[in-house]
């Protein structure tokens, strides 16, 4: 079981809800992913929309826990306001905090992120910060009150997979007690398995599933890969070595010559 701010979670896959071909396909993907947590971006248009007949009704009908996010926010104030609106709308203290610093790479503005995390934590929010793999920033986020960290493994939507495995490994070693969730950049199920093998607690996906030709099947493929990676980590992985090691004991074998 994974403990996130006192909530016990079984599934180690979090699913984003944006950019699916239709809400029906999203709902089917949520089912095959076996996820318990979906993240939803709150836009002004959504917040100000009429009740009923909206996407948010469909999200609520999915029957899974909602982690609102501040996607698209570029400043501390914007992110804090969005988080506060999300708390009202979704009735949750959880927030996936994104403060984007660069329009093209969607890289987090880590300075604004730490400040927003502090403000929101003091306001009673339970913050899931989208951050880089920088250890010092991660330390500051923990100091600011974050009890979960969500580092990227590559830029959002890039599908590059873990481009810096040593950094992810260092982060795991450095924050042994903090749940770590890879938040962005995964493209393939094998990428998800690879980060789970490092001992990461969970993976958050959106584009890799939503933009697949068959999102429903892809969601299941990721779910399987994440479970396999986690099981592999728990089972104890072998370290690679340069030389062959026979799988059959050689000693005592008859010698013919």
């Amino acid at each position, binding site marked *: 079981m994974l403990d996130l701010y006192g909530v016990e979670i079984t599934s180690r896959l979090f699913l984003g809800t944006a950019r699916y*071909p*239709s*809400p*029906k*396909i999203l*709902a089917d993907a949520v089912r095959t992913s076996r996820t318990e947590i979906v993240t939803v971006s709150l*836009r*002004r*248009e*959504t917040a*100000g*929309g*009429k009740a*009923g*007949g*909206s*996407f*948010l*009704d*469909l999200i609520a009908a999915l029957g899974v826990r909602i982690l609102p996010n501040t996607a698209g926010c570029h400043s501390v104030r914007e992110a804090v306001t969005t988080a506060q609106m999300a708390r009202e709308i979704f009735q949750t203290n959880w927030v996936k905090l994104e403060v984007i610093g660069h329009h093209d790479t969607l890289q987090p503005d880590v300075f604004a992120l730490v400040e927003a995390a502090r403000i929101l934590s003091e306001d009673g929010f339970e913050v899931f910060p989208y951050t880089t793999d920088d250890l010092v920033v991660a330390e500051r986020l923990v100091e600011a009150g974050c009890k979960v960290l969500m580092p990227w493994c590559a830029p959002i*939507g890039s599908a590059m997979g873990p481009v810096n495995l040593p950094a992810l490994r260092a982060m795991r070693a450095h924050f042994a007690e903090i749940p770590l969730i890879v938040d962005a950049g995964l493209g393939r199920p094998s990428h998800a398995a690879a980060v789970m093998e490092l001992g990461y607690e969970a993976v958050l996906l959106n584009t890799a599933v939503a*933009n697949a*030709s068959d999102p429903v099947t892809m969601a299941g493929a990721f779910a399987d890969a994440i479970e396999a990676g986690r099981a592999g980590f728990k089972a104890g992985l072998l370290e690679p070595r340069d030389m062959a090691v026979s799988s059959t004991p050689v000693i005592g074998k008859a010698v013919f010559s």
Partner: protein
Amino acid sequence: MHALVRGAGVAGLTVAFELRRHGHAVEIVDRAGYVGAGASGLAGGMLAPFCEGESAPESVTRLGRAAAEWWEAALPGHVGRNGTLVVAPPRDTGELKRFATRTTCHEWLDEDGIAVLEPALAGRFRTALFFRDEAHLDPRAALGALKEWLADDGVRFRFDASSPGTDFDAVFDCTGSAAIGTVPGLRGLRGEMLYLETEEIALSRPVRLLHPRHPLYVVPRGGNRFMVGATMLEANVGGPISARSLMELLNAAYALHPAFGEARVIETGAGVRPAFDDNVPRVLRIGNAIHVNGFYRHGFLLAPAMAREAVSLLERVPA
């Protein structure tokens, strides 16, 4: 049979047209006061079943294939059958490959091929996808012409709030996003678009610009006007276009050709598209009415097929 059609958008007018073809008397009511007051009047008017296949289920491509013929037969001269051109900025050519793997009936063009089709775009893109069999029309002109044809054919239009009476054998509800909350499962998606006017560039067909975050299109409308659309926001909200959407639509047009930077913005608009959870339209019998709704962004593409289905329902089950 005497039929009432509620809603004078693309759904209502195509249903009325099919009803007239079957010899039924038709009355159309729309409280907005004119045709195409809802999403129809803001539509791109692309009859692009193959491009839409990129994200839509197979049924959309299948049902949409006959749309161009239907519109050409109903409104001769209104349909431009020059295909669709799909391009991507140099750094996003991966998107073009992805688009190609998910669509059918297209061919790859090189720089020369693009220049032959659209001289204005010569040298601007190395490669493009061309969907030869696709078509487009001007939604407002088409709806206006359809209304005229129907009126000449004896269809009565009632554009006020007065009650149309109850002595109808059949009622077709084609009220689009106004039916959200009434038709179960119907939701609203905000869409925004704008019109540019410039003499400096000419296009012969809709051009789609792929971008990982904002796939947008520019449709030539004649008279040096171009429609640029359209955003897709999961929100049941109308009202004016937002600054961000305006900026993104203008960026797309500018990326297609810098001449659009000098164009005049002659109109902006925003509306709500009605859609079901699978984004596929439906014909539903609710109470005494036959509802034709949920066209998402496929009004002109799928209205003919859905109108035929709705009217055939009437033929099978006489009221």
